[in-house]
């Protein structure tokens, strides 16, 4: 698939601020796309996504480059720190009234079933690799169009699940890779505070294989609905 065209069309048809982001999870060093360097500085996964989206930064991040080990961990890069996997951090942070509730949530967070070496990021239209998921940060109306475009092919309904924590890592990337189904998520304290995702923006993760049909549908909507 030529992502150059798809990336461009997605941006234009939806009127996105920034680019859709191609994200790939590389199993080993050999799996990394040729010519890609490590990301310029250590940060969090959500930041890497924002950087690719807004400043066109490409690169890959191994466990060392991931400052947020929780984000890396759910994606299968390194282990999930215990204080996160037991829920105690989120309990202390105030997200949950009881430790049991915290544990219930963290147990159900989508987690990668395989382990990976690094995550790779690029704006979609200039990605030189086959992404595992495409992350789009959009306004609710843009998300509406995307949802309608996804359902245009086969109909049905969309169910999105999230828990207000680990949004860009677990909900937008891992859940979509594991299930092969788009997911919408509303961000989390970490991602919104640290990366500047706007109050009026939401996040969607889309399986690459759905994109051609989505683009077609968006074009049809553009003709019919303006």
């Amino acid at each position, binding site marked *: 698939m030529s992502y150059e065209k798809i990336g461009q069309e997605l941006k234009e048809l939806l009127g996105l601020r920034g680019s859709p982001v191609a994200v790939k999870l590389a199993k080993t060093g050999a799996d990394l796309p040729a010519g890609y360097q490590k990301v310029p500085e250590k940060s969090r996964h959500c930041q890497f996504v924002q950087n690719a989206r807004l400043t066109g930064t490409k690169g890959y991040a191994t466990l060392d480059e991931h400052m947020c080990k929780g984000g890396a961990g759910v994606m299968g890069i390194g282990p999930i720190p215990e204080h996160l996997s037991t829920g105690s951090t989120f309990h202390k942070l105030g997200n949950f009234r009881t430790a049991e509730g915290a544990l219930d949530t963290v147990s*159900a967070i989508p987690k990668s079933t395989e382990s990976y070496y690094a995550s790779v990021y690029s704006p979609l239209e200039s990605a030189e690799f086959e992404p595992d998921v495409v992350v789009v940060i959009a306004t609710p109306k843009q998300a509406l169009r995307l949802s309608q475009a996804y359902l245009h092919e086969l109909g*049905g309904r969309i*169910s999105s*699940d999230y828990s207000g924590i680990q949004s860009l890592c677990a909900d937008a990337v891992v859940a979509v890779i594991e*299930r092969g189904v788009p997911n919408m998520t509303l961000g989390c304290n970490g991602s919104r505070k640290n990366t500047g995702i706007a109050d009026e923006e939401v996040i969607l993760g889309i399986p690459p294989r759905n994109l051609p049909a989505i683009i077609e549908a968006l074009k049809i909507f553009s003709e019919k609905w303006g």
Partner: protein
Amino acid sequence: MVKTINVQGIRAPNSGILADNVIKNMDNSDEEIRFLLSPGAEVGMEAVARKHGYTLETSKSGDLIEARLMPTGKTMQEIDVRGDFCPGPVIAVGNIIAALPVGERLKVKAAGSDTLEDIVMAVKSSGSGVVDQGVEGDHHYLIAEKAEKPEAVSAIVNRDSVVIAQSSGIGNAERAYATFLFSKVGLSMGKKVTIFLLMDGAGLAKKGNAACVKHPEFERLDVLMDEVIKAGAKVYVCELSAKFRGIGPRDLVEGVRLAGAATYLELMSNPANAVVNF
């Protein structure tokens, strides 16, 4: 192939909506899908399955519910090994499992629990698992699930168990006595002792035969054999050798069990077993 997706925490009806979308997005419509759901979330799965032409089966998996959606018409393979004797059943089952994709299941119907135990041994030895076992009507059954054989971990092994392969039977008194005296010593040293009677050794398994062996300096062999069995030694007799000699399950000495080739192979190839031949 079987695809397993953990969707715990998602309640009905969203679980069903998600399942619907997963199926729609599948590349291979021949694949079985398994969803791991929180209890209660399986409500609505039946409708999704029917809509797409799948059959649904649910079962418990730890604290979660496992919902298996199988393309209809593609049911679990079954094999009936009743009427066949060792090593036929083990080989037949082994061949089918070797060809199965990981995660797929096979149901095996057998007449006796001994044949089944042998098949269990063979299944586990190849790395696969047994997910269900029991009695159904007039026969026994098990359900095996193919899994990847895990990499062997090299380990320093304590050899605390002894396997005695006895192939000379009642026609050689010295070897027969050695078998049980050796077992006695092993048991007294705290070792786990297993005796596998094969070929002529099967003769020892028949009620009354060991009484034919007597050396002036020792007690009658059947007395010694009984002592050893009561002291905890496990005694197996090769099903094929027994059949060769017209020995059936009802002819066996108390405490001796029929076993098949898979059991023997497993005993021989387990590095924790010290093997001696008599």
